[in-house]
Structure formats: C-alpha cells, structure tokens
C-alpha cells in the first residue's frame, strides 16, 4: 500500500490543509501517551469536506486518521503517517426529540461531551456517560472508543445509549445504522478490538477506534432528568480494606446501587494529594473509595447517608467512618471530581517528563470479573511490588476495572513495567476478563491482542476491517499492526 505524501497537495477542500512543515502541526502530533507523525492535518468544517477527503484518500491510498481532542491514551488519534482529520469544528446538538421509544438527541461528532451533557440537561434530560476527560473529549470519539465514565457502575458504557449513527465509508458512501427498539447491547467492559459477538453492525462500529468509517452523526438515547446525588470519599487503612469493601458492595449488597464505586489506592492517593485544594487527612488513611449515591428528596438523602454510614462504620470502625468526607453541593462535588481527575493528570505529567529518557507512564487497562477481582488484585500487587517501580491503582474498581499505572524513568524500567503489565493481562484473561476495559488498543497495545484472542478471532476481525476499509486507510496502526507496505 504505497502512497506518496506529495499527493496530499492535490486534496481539494475549502479548508486549507496544514502541511507537515507548518508549526501548527505540532499540536496534533501526540496524545497523552504516544507521539506520532502526521503528514498533514485537516480541521474539517463539515460532512461534505469529510466525504470529499475520504474519497480522495481512498483513491490515492492515503492513510487517514480521525481525531477529536486527542485525549486517547493509546495513540489511536495520532497517525504515524498520512492525513489527520480533526472533528473539532463539526460540533453541536442538532435536535432533541421524543417518540414512543424514548427521548433522543441528534449530535455532531465533534461536540464536547460535557457541553452535550449540559445542553441535554438544560432541555430537562440526562446523558450519563461522563469520562473523566469529559470537558475535553468529544462524542464521536466517545462512540469510537465505547467510552465509559465515572458513573458507569450504574449507567454502563456509551454503547448503551447509541441509538443510531451515520457513518461515511472510505469510498464516500454513507450508511445509517440503527438499533431496533428494545435492543439491549452488552455492558461488558471489553474494549479489545471489535466486539466479537456483534449482532447489529452498529456494535461493530462502536469501539472500533476510527478504523471502520467516519461517524458523522449520532442519535443518543437520553434518560429522564438526573436525580440529585452526593459524593463521598470513604477512607480505609489499606488498599485491601478498600478492595474488600468494594467487592462486597458489588457482589453482596444489591440494595446499594451507587452511580460510582471507584478505588483510590495508596499510590493514587499520593497523587491526589498534589491537588492544591486537597485537605490534610489523617496519616493512617492509606486508600479511599470514591462513591456517588443518588437520592430523591431530603428524607431519602438522610436515609442513604445513614445506610452508608452504617456500612462504613461496620467495616472500617467509627474513627475512619467519621472521616468520610461528603460533597452534596454542586461546587463541592466538582472539587471532588477534580481531585479524582488529578490522579491521571499527575501520572501523565510525571510520565511525560521521563519520555526523553525512554521511560514514561505505563498504564494498564485490564479488567476482571468481580468474583475474581480479589485474586486479580493480589496478582497485581505482587507483580507491582516485585518490579520495584512506583505504581498505583485507581478508578472503576466496582466494575472490576482499576487503572493501574507504573512510572518508569528509563528504558530498562519501562521494560520491567511492560513485563508486569503483560503478566497482569495474562492473569486477567485467565480469570475470564480482558486486556482493555476502557481505553482500547490503539497503537501502543496491539501486542496485547494475542493475549486475549486466538489467531482465528484476530483474523476474523481483520476480515471485517477489510470489508469496511479494503485499502486499510482508516486509523492505520490502530488495533492491528499496520499491514506491510
């Protein structure tokens, strides 16, 4: 699949293409984890420009990668070669409507997730999938990565809410994929490659990391107005106390159905404390659980406060229970959220400092079934301790999917971190889980695919890829290594 980047000069669209030697291209050359090398960038203005560009690239076999805000943690939004098309200007909510199947919003792909949430909230509805990066990331990308958010413990991934999508194929043709009324997609956190058991092709596209077509429009199912909630940070002495509490809540305490159930282990807590507004807390506090609990009215609020207080006192003792911080006003909840956001942010900042010495942050994305999570975490902490590197575990523990990070300062340490990661991925798969529960595969985790899938299944996925994108121009290098040129 040979192509010549000079051919890009003859791409005719209204918007000027940013060429490789323009310094503006720098902003588009890396995501949080990966540095690529786009040959040109097009900040497309509309669907027509995308269609023209796709046709052009397909004809000339020019690799084309789409991006939203490039918050991907896998290099999925940064090409190693070819044209990068940004969706940042194709944004806005086109319509909010109701029919006998529910309420829906029609949205353009470049719409920032938080703004989308705000707009549907202003119209009296609720869109619950809020990635921690929601102030930056965009809906089209969220669909393309089947994003989850803080609240997926209760509300699941984006897949659940995508009712219909318009996709533009490499040859410029358009397809509209729609769910049947009453169709309920899977909530399994698996984001490694394409969904193997897809029934409706919409489920093949969701989570396909920009490798099968351009999502030009989406119809999103909305929920009734959000209920109020309070957030709490529950303190524990050790990582294990927090873990056992979370596992017990998920498996045995079916009455408790919080929106969020996240771990902040001792390594993550250290980073959270670097947040300017984080208060001083007792030194004996070694880890936290971050929960959000919904309620209906004042009486229900107090009832839930008491339910949690009882459980926390019972498991942690009165001393720690008394140090459980609660946020029940919007401002305080935002502050809690930003503390939580500080963890990946700080880890990424540190990791990037080590890039120049060939080190960096090595993040995991594996997940395990809840009834196997204790075994999985035991394995992780063993491997992590043995590596001798700084590490942390945080986030969606209630879904069996903590983010674990290693910080490596140089190439040797990085290798150790990668080995630890691979070991955890093998264990996760052995326990019935998977290698990618949130961020997908992108370019940096293609080596993990064979851990989870047999040769046959990977070949099956490649066949679907060829069916949609015969010239293999879309998101080249994502999910599968780029084919030989």
């Amino acid at each position, binding site marked *: 699949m040979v192509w010549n980047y000079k051919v890009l000069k003859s791409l005719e669209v209204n918007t000027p293409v940013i060429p490789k030697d323009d310094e503006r291209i720098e902003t588009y050359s890396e995501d949080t984890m990966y540095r690529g090398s786009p040959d040109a960038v097009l900040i497309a203005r509309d669907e027509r420009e995308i269609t023209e560009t796709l046709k052009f690239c397909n004809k000339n076999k020019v690799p084309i990668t789409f991006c939203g805000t490039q918050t991907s943690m896998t290099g999925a939004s940064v090409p190693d070669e070819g044209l990068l098309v940004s969706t940042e200007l194709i944004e806005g909510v086109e319509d909010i409507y109701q029919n006998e199947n529910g309420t829906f919003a029609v949205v353009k792909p470049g719409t920032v997730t938080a703004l989308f949430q705000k707009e549907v909230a202003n119209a009296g509805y609720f869109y619950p999938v809020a990635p921690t990066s929601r102030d930056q990331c965009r809906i089209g990308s969220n669909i393309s990565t089947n994003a989850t958010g803080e609240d997926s413990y209760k509300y699941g991934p984006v897949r659940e809410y995508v009712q219909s999508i318009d996709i533009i194929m490499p040859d410029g043709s358009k397809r509209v994929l729609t769910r049947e009324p009453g169709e309920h997609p899977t909530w399994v956190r698996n984001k490694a490659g394409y969904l193997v058991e897809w029934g409706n092709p919409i489920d093949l596209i969701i989570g396909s990391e920009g490798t099968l077509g351009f999502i030009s429009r989406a119809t999103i199912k909305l929920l009734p107005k959000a209920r109020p909630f309070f957030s709490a940070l529950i303190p524990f002495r050790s990582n294990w106390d927090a873990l056992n509490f979370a596992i017990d809540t998920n498996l045995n305490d079916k009455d408790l159905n919080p929106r969020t159930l996240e771990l902040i282990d001792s390594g993550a807590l250290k980073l959270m404390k670097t947040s300017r507004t984080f208060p001083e807390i007792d030194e004996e506090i070694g880890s936290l659980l971050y929960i959000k609990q919904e309620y209906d009215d004042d009486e229900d609020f107090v009832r839930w406060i008491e339910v949690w207080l009882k459980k926390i006192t019972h498991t942690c003792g009165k001393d720690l*229970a008394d140090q459980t911080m609660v946020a029940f*006003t*919007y401002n305080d909840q935002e502050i809690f959220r930003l503390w939580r956001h500080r963890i990946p942010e700080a880890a990424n900042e540190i990791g990037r400092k080590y890039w120049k010495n060939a080190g960096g942050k090595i993040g995991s994305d594996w997940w395990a079934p809840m009834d196997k999570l204790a075994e999985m975490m035991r394995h992780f902490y063993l491997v992590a301790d043995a590596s001798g590197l700084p590490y942390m575990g945080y986030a969606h523990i209630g879904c069996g999917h903590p983010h674990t990070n290693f910080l490596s300062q140089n190439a040797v340490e990085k290798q150790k971190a990668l080995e630890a990661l691979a070991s955890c991925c093998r264990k996760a798969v052995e326990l019935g889980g998977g290698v990618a529960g949130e961020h997908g595969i992108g370019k940096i985790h293609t080596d993990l695919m064979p851990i989870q899938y047999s040769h046959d299944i990977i070949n099956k996925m490649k066949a679907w890829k060829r069916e949609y994108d015969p010239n293999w121009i879309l998101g080249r290098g994502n999910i599968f290594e780029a084919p030989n040129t």
Partner: protein
Amino acid sequence: MNIIVTIKQVPDTNNITIDPETGTLNREGVPAIINPEDKNALEAALTLKEKHGAKVIVLSMGPPQAEKALREALAMGADEAILLSDRAFAGADTWATAYTLSCAVKKIKDYSLIIGGRQAIDGDTAQTGPQLSECLKIPQITYVQDVKVEGDTVLAKSVFGNVRRMVQAKMPALLTVTKEMNEPRYSTIRGIATAYREKKITVWNSKDVDAKPMRIGLPGSPTQVRKTFSPKHEREGKVFAGAPGQLANDLLGVLVDNNYV
C-alpha cells in the same frame, strides 16, 4: 465562649445568568448554596472552637428554604442554628437585615464573636457585617485573613488591597472574613447524619426577636436600587513583539508590575 456565624443562602453564581433586558438574576433552577465567604467564616469559627472550646451558633435570615444552608452548616460542625424567617422580613436591604440580625443577637445575648463573610455573592455590598456591628455598638474588623483570640481580645490580620494591618479589639467584636482566610472543611458523613437527625433548627419571627415593624423588611429599607447591570469587563489586549527571550522578559515585567508574581 459563644461564636455567632452569620450566613446567607445565595444562588450559586457559577450557575447563574443575568437577564440582559431586566437586569435581574435568572434564579430559576439555580442551586442555592451557603455564600462562599460565609463558609470561610464558619470554618474560622470551627477552628477557634477546636482551639479554645466554644459553641458555634449559625444565624441566618431568609425564607424557610434557607434551612438547607443551616443544615449544611450544622453538618460541618456548628452546634446550633437559628433561622430568622417571617414574611415581614421580606424585601430587606442590608440596613434592615443588619437590624434584624442585631435583634436576634441581642436575644442570644451571650457571645464573644460574630463572624461573617465579607460580602454575599448575590449583592456584593459588603455592608451587612459592618452595619450589624454598628447596630450592636461593638468593634468591627473587616477583610480578615487570620485571627487569634487572646484572653478577652481578638487580634486579626486585615488585608485590603496592598494594605495589611494587624488590628486588636476587645470582645465582643465582629469580624468579616475573606476567602483567603482558610479552606472550609467538607461535611463528614456522620456530621450530616447528626445534623439532620439530632440537631434542631430554631426558627424565630419578628415578634420572637422583638423587632420594630418599621425597621424591618421593605418599610425598614432606605436603599433604592436605581439600576442593576452586569459588570462589563473592559479587557485590554497587549501584543508583545520580539525574540522569545525578550518576550518572556517583557511578559514577566508586566506580571511583576501588577503584583502577580
């Protein structure tokens, strides 16, 4: 020692807009919160309580819904809460509010300090605190960023613009504090449970506090609002030119000149 903290429930201005036609606040659907600097006042009181032992009484004038703000204050650790609620209080300006609060303070009688926020974010007048001290004829220290209690005096660091003063006053005294004073604590889960299940909010009306009808609510409010408007920020752009090193120097110069660094 009893410390009275005056708090006001205000619309959360982070979530508010002003109707450009009428110049009034669009209050619909906007969450109500404790005025931020009143939270700093409460934090200051709770810190003094932890150090010297004290009873912290929160006092608010407002409609019945203001109970929620008082509950939050109780959850943060206040011991008692009093809500001044009466239709006759409606329409009060800062003068009538200060008078009404002073009637309640007189009824409480035994207190060493009154602490309030510098100003409420829905009016930005910074008048109620000082007026309350005038009504009570007690000393006031405003714009406080730090406070110490020694015997029967209070020593406070007051910062206004570039002027810093250490001011000492004999108690009882009134302080208004700014957001730089502290980081208000978060409610604890047990604090909330106790605030809702065990602590009571006392509600007083105009008769309970023996307030003169002509000095409260609209009749007691001499202020006439002639116009409200959204402040226009006259932003000034400045373009620097030159080599990167020079640019950095010029920029730093401006930041230093304006006391930003």
